[in-house]
């Protein structure tokens, strides 16, 4: 494969028991030094090819296919039928459930990000306090993040059930005679689901990222602030928060996208979008339309809207962060 004589010579030293990987690393090193840059790039791309093929075939291709399919009517049997903008007209006409679903999606995403970022930051701050047992606490906080969502959903069902659930039992024990129906009250269900995001994998990840960021804040700043008599809240507001603001922005963006994308895995097993459409978000509706009702065209149109929503929201967060994020740290 590598035809440049210098490179071949260099590579040949590693024949034998050294192993393929050990042999390839100096080959690349040699290639990048000796070969023309274009050729070296080509080789690098060749090695990337399997991943690129996977990306194009299983991610890029379907994403691109969604757009034309959103202008069709298709139930997966036979060929898609071109219907122009009819799917979008149906969505935006306001006759169906589209607008309440978009509203639910935004409400859930914003509340979910708020809950997960605040929770993970809170836990990370506690960990950085170096209190006894902080490591154990961190492990316990991270543990639910590795439980499969479907198992967690069943456990939460048992905890949150209005009549037989443990949470309402405790609330009744402390004198609250009419605790909420966490999963079946349309005014409460979305907030419950947003609160459940603290048990997700990405909230655990956020905690670790915050923890690492907090450890990077120079200790001198805290010492100086303490000598000046600054309160804990002032230190947090004027030192910690600005110093970790790039990481905070990163977590908010990632958290927002994850909340939108992962909403299905939390909501579907817990409420299936109900009661009524009270907890139906776009991802749940896309699944129902695509794989339960086989309205592939309409589901694709919804996916396009979800994509646009993600992109616009991310741009908005970046725009908002321009004046708030401190990159000098």
């Amino acid at each position, binding site marked *: 494969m590598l035809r440049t004589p210098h490179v071949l010579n260099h590579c040949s030293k590693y024949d034998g028991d050294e192993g393929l990987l050990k042999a390839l690393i100096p080959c690349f090193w040699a290639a990048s030094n000796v070969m023309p840059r274009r050729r070296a790039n080509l080789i690098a791309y060749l090695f990337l090819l399997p991943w690129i093929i996977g990306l194009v075939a299983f991610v890029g291709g379907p994403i691109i296919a969604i757009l034309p399919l959103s202008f069709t009517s298709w*139930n*997966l*049997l*036979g060929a898609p039928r071109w219907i122009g903008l009819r799917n979008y007209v*149906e969505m935006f006409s306001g*006759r*169906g*459930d589209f607008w309440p679903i978009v509203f639910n999606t935004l409400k859930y995403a914003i509340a979910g990000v708020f809950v997960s970022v605040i929770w993970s930051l809170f836990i990370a701050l506690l960990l950085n306090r170096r209190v006894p047992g902080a490591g154990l606490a961190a492990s316990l906080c991270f543990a639910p993040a590795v439980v499969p969502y479907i198992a967690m*959903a*069943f456990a939460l*069902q*048992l905890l949150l*059930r*209005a*009549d*037989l659930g443990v949470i309402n039992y405790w609330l009744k024990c402390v004198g609250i005679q009419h605790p909420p*129906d966490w*999963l*079946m*009250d*349309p005014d409460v269900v979305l907030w419950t689901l947003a609160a459940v995001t603290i048990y997700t994998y990405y909230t655990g990840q956020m905690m670790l990222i915050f923890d690492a960021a907090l450890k990077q804040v120079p200790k001198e700043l805290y010492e100086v602030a303490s000598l000046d008599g600054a309160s804990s809240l002032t230190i947090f507001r004027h030192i910690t928060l600005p110093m970790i603001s790039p990481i905070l922005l990163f977590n908010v963006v990632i958290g927002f996208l994850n909340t939108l994308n992962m909403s299905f895995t939390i909501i*579907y*097993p*817990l*409420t*299936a*979008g*109900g*009661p*009524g*459409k*009270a907890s139906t978000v776009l991802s749940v509706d896309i699944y*129902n*339309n695509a*794989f*339960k*009702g*086989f*309205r592939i065209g309409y589901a694709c149109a919804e996916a396009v809207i979800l994509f646009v929503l993600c992109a616009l929201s991310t741009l908005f967060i970046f725009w908002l962060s321009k004046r708030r994020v401190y990159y000098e740290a």
Partner: protein
Amino acid sequence: MKRLVILLACVLASFGVFGEQIVIKYAHWNALPEDPFNYVKAFETLYPQYKIDFTLIAEAEYPATLRQMAATDTLPDVLCLWEHDIVEFAKAGYVIPLDKYLSQSKFLNIDDFIPATKELMEMQGGLYGLPWCYATHVLYYNKDLFDKKGIPYPNENWTWDDFVKAARALTDPAAGIYGCDAIVFHGIWWDLIGTFGDPIIDEQGRFAIGGGAEKLLTELYQLTQEGVIAKPATLAMGAAAVDLFAAGKAAMKFDGSWMTTQYKDITAFAWDIAPTPTVDGRRYVHLHTGFFAINAKSKVKDAAWKFIEFCLSHFGQTLIVRGETIFSSRASLASHGEGIYGIKGPTNWAAVPVQVENGHWGYLLFPSTVWMDAVNDFYAVMLGNISPATAVCRAIDRAKDILGADKVAPYAPCP
């Protein structure tokens, strides 16, 4: 010499001199039953010239996977299609009519199948599939709780009023006992809507609900408010985290006949099954099945029919029914009475034929988005979030969006 003979035999075998084995591809959402009820193995033993290449498809993804197979031209020779899919696949030309095969069969007769088979055939203008077996819905009841209150057990003459009266009498808030559990399985809603007088699917094949649904929802909401029926708390597609009936906290429950496989191990109380109650003499029950069908592009159509014919034979049906704990789709065999007899119930398997007499495919002939969202709204009614009239009108509106206005029967109160 010995080696030469073996070599020759191998060569001849590879050229198919000993008779070519026909491979029939077959897909199903249920794993094949264990021996001795493995009907595929039985078929292969009986007809060694055929080999079944079986594909198990996860139930949750079954219809979607079959459609993907159709789109990629990889459908198996023998399909077992769900109610709505048989309509769609036949319409799209993916499966062939079976009328010719059936007329040539020595022991299969359309009149011997559960009546709903003929109903669908007439609606489709041809026979595109034969039900491999069926399941239905029944009323489960806790005999101990009935005995405690001295209330006679439900029977086939029970009316809706009898049900309500008994449910009220059986409710005991102090003991945390409900007269009836909340509706968990979506099909029950449609059974009761049909029983309350709506056609569900009319003669023109339109989605048709209205007054019956509104009346039912009003009554059920009232009973839920009174605490006679438990408040709904369901998961996706009808799975509940807590089963009040199994826990002995609900005296009655409407559910699928397949729940007998779970309840058979109940030891805490005696229980049984009964036909669902009637309203003005009307009982409407849904049946669940898969229809054996033949892929239009199959190269082994006759062999595929041979396999289907075997599965629907007395022997094949006995294996399927016992292995899968469901009921034979052939009336002459179903009357033999097959069912689970658990520790404390059930015994009244005679309830099932009563249900079948009034059995329809009903809501199952429509795409699931038509009825799934409607069911979500019915739950919302029970929780007092929306009115019965709103739920019905929303169901009709949604059906119009999905099916087209001409495929939905009008209901005057809905604009």
